């Protein structure tokens, strides 16, 4: 009876085709920026287009990008983890300590990953268990984790990592493709699938857009967030293994200031810092862009701080551009 009033109006699934959506997407903008930088670099320095040089250059971003993947998920869920660089330091310190006790490579890796997970769990507990704002919690643990590493190491350094360990930071899988770069690619695909193709990824978006409604909808908000913090801890540990292996030594000041670079990478990749949106391809592109910028400037011997001006400008302008464009179009 009432059925008659409910004549279904047809609602199409989507208004725009896949192509139209792709053209308008953030990633397209990033691809354009990346291509431009690639071209400029190729013209600016004769050394740029050399496979080995490019391969060396990947080390400028691979470790940071690994963390950026997990960080992207955390930021999409509406939280942030500023302690990642300090987790690197603490993980590296604990591994260095384990070396002194005579552990070998496989054990070192396990110990490293476990330390990262513990740090992540600590952040996760404070954020989800006690309900504290993550930005503040991780500012605190940022000091705490690196501080612990200072307590353990003081003015010393841990060295003497086993030769096999150095493969993680210096080894090559095939030709110019280093272990780190291959790991970076593998993780990019893994995180891309997790975020875009699984229920877990959908839950991350739902939480980032409306945490309360997600909870009411049966998303286990606390558990998902906890897992996300575990993941950043874990990825920081992976990055720490690579970095430690690359440097062959541990100082408490290792990876100082990386947290802001990682966040910059994520945001440049189009992840909304307020949560709710963003993609892994965007983060991958941002990592490539930042790597190419630092390498290109490096070839011209431009001081790092001048590169950072450029990254800063790039960050603001890449975000401002679509806004300005929309406004410009809207005004006519």
């Amino acid at each position, binding site marked *: *009876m*009432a*059925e008659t*009033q*409910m*004549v*279904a*109006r*047809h*609602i*199409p*699934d*989507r*208004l725009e085709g896949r192509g139209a959506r792709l053209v308008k997407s953030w990633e397209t903008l990033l691809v354009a920026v990346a291509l431009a930088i690639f071209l400029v670099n190729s013209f600016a320095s004769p050394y740029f287009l050399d496979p080995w040089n490019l391969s060396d250059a990947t080390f400028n971003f691979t470790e940071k990008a690994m963390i950026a993947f997990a960080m992207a998920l955390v930021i999409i869920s509406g939280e942030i983890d500023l302690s990642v660089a300090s987790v690197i330091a603490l993980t590296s310190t604990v591994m260095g300590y384990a070396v002194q006790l005579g552990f070998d490579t496989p054990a070192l890796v396990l110990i490293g990953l476990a330390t990262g997970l513990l740090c992540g769990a600590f952040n996760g507990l404070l954020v989800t268990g006690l309900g504290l704002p993550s930005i503040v919690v991780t500012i605190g643990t940022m000091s705490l984790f690196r501080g612990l590493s200072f307590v353990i190491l003081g003015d010393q350094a841990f060295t003497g990592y086993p030769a096999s360990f150095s493969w993680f930071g210096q080894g090559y899988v095939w030709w110019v493709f280093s272990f780190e770069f291959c790991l970076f690619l593998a993780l990019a695909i893994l995180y891309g699938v997790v975020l875009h*193709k*699984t*229920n*877990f*990824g*959908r839950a991350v*978006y*739902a939480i*980032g*857009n*409306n945490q*309360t*409604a*997600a*909870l*009411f*909808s*049966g*998303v*286990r908000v606390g558990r998902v967030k906890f897992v996300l913090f575990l993941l950043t801890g874990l990825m920081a540990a992976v990055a720490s293994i690579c970095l430690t292996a690359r440097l062959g030594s541990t100082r408490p000041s290792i990876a100082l200031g990386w947290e802001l670079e990682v966040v910059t990478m994520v945001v440049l990749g189009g992840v909304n810092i307020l949560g*709710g*949106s963003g993609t892994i391809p965007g983060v991958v592109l941002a990592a490539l862009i930042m790597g190419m910028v630092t390498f290109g400037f490096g070839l011209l011997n431009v001081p790092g701080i001048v590169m950072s001006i450029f990254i800063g400008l790039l960050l603001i302008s890449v975000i401002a551009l679509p806004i300005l464009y929309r406004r410009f179009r809207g005004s006519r």
Partner: protein
Amino acid sequence: MLQDTTTSRMKPAIALEGISKTFPGVRALSEVSLALYPGSVTALVGENGAGKSTLVKILTGIYQPDEGSIRVDGAETHFPTANAAAKAGVTAIHQETVLFDELSVAENIFLGHAPRTRLGLIDWRRMNADARALLARVGADLDPSIRLRDLGIASKHLVAIARALSIDARVVIMDEPTAALSHKEIHELYELVDRLKADGKAILFISHKFDEIFRIADRYTVFRDGRMVGEGLISETTQDDLVRLMVGRDVGQVFPKQDVAIGEPVLTVSGYRHPTEFEDIHFELRRGEILGFYGLVGAGRSEFMQSLIGITKPSAGAIKLHGEIKVIRSPAEAIAAGIVYVPEERGRQGAIIGLPIFQNVTLPSLSRTSRAGFLRMAEEFALARDYTSRLDLRAASLDQDVGTLSGGNQQKVVIAKWLATRPKVIILDEPTKGIDIGSKAAVHAFMSELAASGLSVIMVSSEIPEIMGMADRVIVMREGRIAGRFERAELTAEKLVRAAAGIEEAA
């Protein structure tokens, strides 16, 4: 002197001409004209998403129209900000309460136009005194210096009304002002409207409740799909005429309750209590039954319902589902057990603004549309299409952000989301709050069908006609306790009101 009720000879206090407003993908208003007259109440009615609130926002300087003009006393003006509108004497009580939890009541009333000392600094003492006077005018006995967050929802609404009156206005707009108020407060509001009218204010009154429109309005204007489709004097129209104008067709029975054979007990709740929110709650819900929960706003119904799905933790009590004891610690477990809750606060608890419609609908059902934890978009679209079309959703596409829908259409998405989980027990908390009459009928019909198909329904409602029309049985709550139980046969409005307000049965 006699009050002049025929406004035709008077000059409008404010007049809108040819106003259009387009949002991305939606033409909210097209070439709308409206005039408000001093000393007269104009009711604005229309389905959800007809553009009523958009018009209010244009009148108060929050949105800018794309086309058209606003004339105040015949002179063309425009309102670039809310301040400009206030200066021109336009004030509004908005549909959402837009207040500041952390600020004091007085400041909430005077923020932006606080009394100043000679040095130009804020004069707190005068502000508090003035606030007290205004609160008295709207019948709220509140201390102006307490923080707003310590107030109940109804009191907050009274503060919003006081704020609107703090501006010396000639035009007063009220967008569904009674939605959050209880019986007594609603009547005080009617009196206030009468007084404002007597003071010569031009009033625009938006409501989905026809009884109140016919109680206080002099004129009416009807919107449909962003257009003005009719206006005139209330005294010359009927409810049926208005409804027909609104939806462009006849609406059948508003409360189409089917007779359903009530089956075995499905859900048994016993000894539920919480230290501060509710206590001693027990009842049984049977198959095919619609159990109404009536009470005044703030009676604790929502809190109790949320404890059933594991949001608030009860300190004691047990649930039996089909005779088996179930422990539910989270909404996820509730959904798995087949108990779902359609929340009352749509914006905060229901819709996930920022996600597309189809993802909203499938969120609690992902385990069904996915395989081994991997999403399958085609299944998701199919599920979303199925349930949204049953509720007659109006949207441009299923890929559209729910945030771009009108309130009523958002509510449909939220209901679709819960139905898609194929629950055994569905708890609907104020399912038709702020929904237009057409959609309301659809929701009621659907509820009735759900019961007929063997579902058990709990319906929380503060509207007596809805409770009387739909419920097989009614439980009345007051201050966190059950204050009365009624079978359908013995229901009267008076009994409900007495139980809810705690008035003893006249001996």
